[in-house]
């Protein structure tokens, strides 16, 4: 009897004492990927700093030198201006590309004739990178904003269109039958079944296109722009300031990550039921 109480009592009392460590352990488990990422980033920065100690700053500027350059570019407003200029172009070109690419993809996916008419062009142009059009864009649209926005539009519209077509073709045929037997006209089927079914594909297309827009904006700005992150990277050459190049590159990476995060969270919130 005494033996029993001795063995059961601590066991009964323990759960209260155990709650804390176990929930803490669970939280640790959830935070693990985050900690690993932090370790990876800090490790990378350390390696960079170490490597820079054995080379000239013109070849590889150190982390601290890059940080100082960033502060310098922030204090005279160049960095903010570059971010705004590049972001504006990306958003305008990407936004227009999504707005045109989605309906284009829907119609091409749904109507055989439209697809057959446009298919040769899509198949031809999708192998031509936007950089190949930089010169033409400047000749046709001038050195101003329009040429750069047009190039980003070009890069976006293909990806979004092709993804949307794939989405339309992946619509479950049973749902089309169900809709038509519930009295939907062809147009109503398009707007109430095909469009919502295709949303996950559009979102994927839009996200990939966002990445490509960053690639395109830099090449366009290198060729012709006074402002923008591409221009910043390119003009650094004239001043032999390799650290500005690094500031531009790191900013591009962070900005891209931020845009993608915002896009992901926004689509998750706004389009939750379609994903």
């Amino acid at each position: 009897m005494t033996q029993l109480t001795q063995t059961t009592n601590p066991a009964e009392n323990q759960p209260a004492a155990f709650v804390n460590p176990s929930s803490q352990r669970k939280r640790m488990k959830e935070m693990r990927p985050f900690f690993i990422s932090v370790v990876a980033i800090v490790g990378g920065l350390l390696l960079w700093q170490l490597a820079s100690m054995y080379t000239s700053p013109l070849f590889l500027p150190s982390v601290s030198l890059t940080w100082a350059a960033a502060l310098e570019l922030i204090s005279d407003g160049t960095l903010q201006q570059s971010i705004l200029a590049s972001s504006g172009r990306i958003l305008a070109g990407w936004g227009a590309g999504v707005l045109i690419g989605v309906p284009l993809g829907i119609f091409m996916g749904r109507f055989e004739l439209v697809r057959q008419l446009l298919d040769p062009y899509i198949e031809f142009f999708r192998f031509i990178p936007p950089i190949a059009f930089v010169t033409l864009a400047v000749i046709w649209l001038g050195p101003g904003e329009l040429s750069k926005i047009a190039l980003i539009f070009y890069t976006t519209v293909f990806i979004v269109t092709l993804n949307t077509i794939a989405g339309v073709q992946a619509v479950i045929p049973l749902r089309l039958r169900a809709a038509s037997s519930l009295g939907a006209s062809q147009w109503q089927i398009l707007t109430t079944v095909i469009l919502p079914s295709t949303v996950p594909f559009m979102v994927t297309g839009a996200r990939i296109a966002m990445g490509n827009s960053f690639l395109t904006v830099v090449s366009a700005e290198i060729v012709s722009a006074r402002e923008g992150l591409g221009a910043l990277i390119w003009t650094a050459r004239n001043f032999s300031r390799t650290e500005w190049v690094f500031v531009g590159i790191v900013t591009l990476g962070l900005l891209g990550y931020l845009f993608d995060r915002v896009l992901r969270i926004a689509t998750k919130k706004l389009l939750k039921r379609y994903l």
Partner: protein
Amino acid sequence: MVRGSSVSIKRVGLTIGTNEIMAGIDLDIRAGEFVCLLGPSGCGKSTLLNAIAGFQDVAGEILVDGKPVKGPGLDRGVVFQSSEALFPWLSVRENVEYGLKLRRVDAAERRSAAERYVSLVGLKHAIDKFPGELSGGMRQRAQIARVLVNEPSVVLMDEPFGALDAQTREVLQSELDRIWKSTGCTIVFVTHDIWEAILLADRVVTMTAGPRASIKVIEKIELPHPRDPADPACMALYARIRDDIGAEVTRVLRAQGLIEEELVK
């Protein structure tokens, strides 16, 4: 309460390429009747249902309430075997309101009609859930409500309980019996489950195995509802239908060379 429509199928056949899928099908279904199409898989019973629904063009003539079928229509509701037919981005309520919304029925009327039919299928407690949150049986209830809300005079059901577990199937069978009586619509129900056909139907139409599928026997069932499988009359009926279908299954197996293989082993 809706008035059911008659369905008359005259010399219906379907040939795809050189394959004669079905041929010479004649069947008259009374308004308000519950008819089960029964047969081995591949006998064309779903094809015949799709023809009535207007999804499949066929030779011959199909008249619903005396008017020839030309494509899908609101007078014929279809309940599919797969609950993928529901729209996963719409809640149960929105799925049920879908047909009404297309016809621009005003919001208040839509709401009350949807609630009435969702209650009829016993899904009131889950009306604001999404299909992905429901069990297979609940999803089929939602499909039935989505069809009934349009008050079709003919309801076409393609093995609607085929993917459900045995217990859920039994529950839904007895509920369908009740729903059918409370709406008064004509039901054409495809199944390969003999008991299901006996429990539900006024007439069981057994089809021959394809190719050239056609009607083999029509059994009229005049037993009172709800029917009890332990009733000797049901048992006798079961044995008869089983033998009819058994003969067809044997024919199919022999055609596929499967029976000989079994013997060799």
